[in-house]
């Protein structure tokens, strides 16, 4: 049964709800104020009027039909959350935004909803009485809508269970993020190389031209699988007093100390691993054990950007002053050309999943309707790319040549370590790039170490930080560190 007033109430409620949801915060988190300032807009007043009309019409319709107007019931149910929110929000202001306030808010909201329902039923006892015989009449069996509802719920639950059992509709990973503890800010991991100090001079930020002393960031990953991540799925990026991702060390070299300065980009910085898992730390521990004397391996990853042209300037300005015995450049092969990807695969298409991917059934249905193949193979010819557009590789060679000359003049060894990509190891598309670097270094008389043999044949997924981040994890970093250790201090 429904009345004209009930239908009007429903349309008014729908209109108000659409308006409120579009504006997102109209009639949500309210607060009483003493005066209406000049210029208060008519939009919100109109919304208030519409809500008021909906409630009044709905109540009138219920009263006239002794509670049997189903349309009016729907209209009031639609309006109820906004009304309850208006009633409860001032309480949260009094309680403050703490955890206790949140729980009291939730409990009070629920209680107020129950109270409103009870008040509506009790206010028109005739309606309740009129409904009673109908309730008795339906005791013989559940009504058709109830049966239909239960059947739908059971079917959905069954489908969800089957989809999970068959491993269909996996939830996609969110992209990694950087957190700035204290600042509460989240930024995409891809921004990591773009972080810069805020207007500080080189003297103020110490050796690094990029990071502030003792800056603290956290790298967050969605459901990481390796045990070195903390309970919240993060790794810590802690910088020392010189703005380097390393433990603190004395600038002055200790007597008898063997010192290595390692410079490079994300692989040397250790994106996605804890500091103690970085290859520089693996090397430092190994050298101490083998040499039996003080050893300091300084991690200058990202200290001067992420390109060998920047490494040269940092080494000349800061690195030489650290009096290293060896400067190791962790050369990433994507430094040779901007078109060289860190990943040997096409990145998976990003698709928003319903319910944030929490339902395997819905995910599977979405995939069936719109397939999105992950990691489709794209066979690139990176060596040809470098040969056809050699400008960047020429700049890298020139920078390495000048760096070698300056270090040689200071009596410091230069070791170039082309770091293997941890991607496509079964059909490695970067092989010729290793050969390019080796040929250049041999021609220039620069020490170089090719670590590719250590990586070929490995299960590449066991070396990734995360399915969304194919930087080397602790195992990959250990392979690099042990390789350099074997070169610098063979058993």
């Amino acid at each position, binding site marked *: 049964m429904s009345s004209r007033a009930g239908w009007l109430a429903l349309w008014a409620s729908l209109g108000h709800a659409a308006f409120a949801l579009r*504006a997102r*915060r*109209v*009639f949500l988190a*309210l*607060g*009483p*104020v*003493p*005066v*209406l*300032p*000049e*210029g*208060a*807009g008519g*939009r*919100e*007043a109109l919304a*208030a009027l519409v*809500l*008021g009309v909906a409630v009044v019409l709905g109540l009138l319709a219920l009263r006239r039909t002794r509670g049997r107007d189903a349309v009016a019931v729907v209209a009031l149910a639609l309006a109820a959350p906004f*009304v309850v929110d*208006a*009633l409860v*929000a*001032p309480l949260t*202001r009094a309680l*403050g*935004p*703490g*955890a206790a306030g*949140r729980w009291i808010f939730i409990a009070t909201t629920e209680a107020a909803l129950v*109270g409103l329902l*009870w*008040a*509506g039923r*009790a*206010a028109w*006892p005739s309606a309740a009485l009129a409904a009673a015989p109908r309730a008795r009449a339906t005791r013989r069996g559940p009504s058709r809508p109830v049966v239909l509802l239960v059947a739908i719920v059971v079917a959905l639950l069954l489908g969800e269970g089957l989809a999970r059992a068959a491993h269909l509709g996996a939830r996609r990973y969110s992209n990694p993020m950087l957190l*700035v*503890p*204290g*600042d*509460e*800010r*989240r930024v995409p991991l891809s921004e990591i190389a773009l972080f810069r100090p805020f207007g500080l001079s080189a003297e*103020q930020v110490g050796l690094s031209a990029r990071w*502030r*002393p*003792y*800056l*603290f960031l*956290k790298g967050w990953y969605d459901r990481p699988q390796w045990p070195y991540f903390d309970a919240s799925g993060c790794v*810590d990026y*802690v910088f020392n*007093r010189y703005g380097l991702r390393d*433990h*603190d060390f004395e600038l002055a070299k200790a007597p008898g100390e063997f010192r290595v300065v390692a410079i490079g980009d994300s692989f040397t910085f250790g994106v996605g691993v804890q500091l103690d898992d970085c290859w520089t730390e693996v090397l430092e521990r190994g050298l101490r054990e083998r040499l039996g004397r003080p050893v300091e391996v300084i991690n200058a990853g990202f200290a001067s950007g992420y390109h060998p042209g920047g490494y040269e300037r940092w080494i000349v300005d800061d690195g030489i002053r650290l009096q290293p015995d060896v400067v190791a450049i962790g050369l990433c092969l994507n430094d040779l050309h901007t078109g060289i990807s860190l990943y040997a695969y096409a990145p998976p298409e990003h698709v928003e999943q319903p319910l944030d991917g929490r339902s395997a059934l819905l995910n599977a249905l979405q995939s069936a309707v719109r397939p999105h193949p992950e990691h489709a193979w794209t066979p690139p010819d990176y060596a040809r790319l470098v040969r056809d557009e050699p400008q960047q590789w020429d700049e890298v060679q020139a920078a390495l040549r000048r760096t070698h000359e300056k270090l040689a003049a200071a009596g410091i060894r230069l070791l170039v370590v082309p770091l293997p990509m941890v991607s496509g190891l079964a059909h490695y598309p970067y092989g010729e790039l290793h050969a390019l670097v080796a040929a250049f270094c041999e021609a220039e008389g620069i020490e170089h170490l090719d670590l590719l043999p250590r990586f070929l044949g490995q299960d590449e997924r066991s070396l990734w930080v995360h399915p969304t981040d194919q930087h080397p994890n602790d195992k990959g970093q250990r392979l690099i560190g042990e390789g350099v250790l074997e070169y610098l201090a063979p058993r």
Partner: protein
Amino acid sequence: MRPRAALSRALFAAFVLVAPPLLYGASVRAALARDVAALAGTEPPPREAVVARVAACGPCGVDVLIEALAGPTPVPAMNLLRAASPDAVVPPLVAALDDLDEDVRHGAGMALAYIGADAVPALDAALERSPVPHVRASAAWALSFMGAAGTPALPALQAALDDKDKDVRYVARYAIAQLSSGNEAFWTAVDKARARSGDPAR
């Protein structure tokens, strides 16, 4: 009339009486938020008029400004908060460090840093006494921007190097580094403490 029905009708009457002023309040908040956002627009309203409206709304006006910090144009709200009485704005800003919305938390921290010396005692207290680790970390982070104005908080920051939460320790160390650059005596003391504890965050 039965007591239950009387109570129900009383509740209904109360609802009818209370709802309109609350909806009225919603209109005011929305209008204020629009005015504050318009200050960053091409045709801004007179700033004095907006300041007067915010002041007339009391605590609600401050809440609107804090919410605006999380919006796309936070600068006008930050300027209005800085110009307002610290007694009125600092306590709600410190409370907003525990807001559910991370953008509000970020905006509140930045606004406290922008307010500067007047916010130091409240941040100092939050760092020492808040039971919520991320509020303590946010207090330390805000202090890190204050330069000379933040130096009265150095003892609290130094005490936070022993905080039970690792994140708070790291952020405190960062804040000390920002506030103490060039203070070698202080660094010597921190280095010694670090050597004693073996904790890299010290």
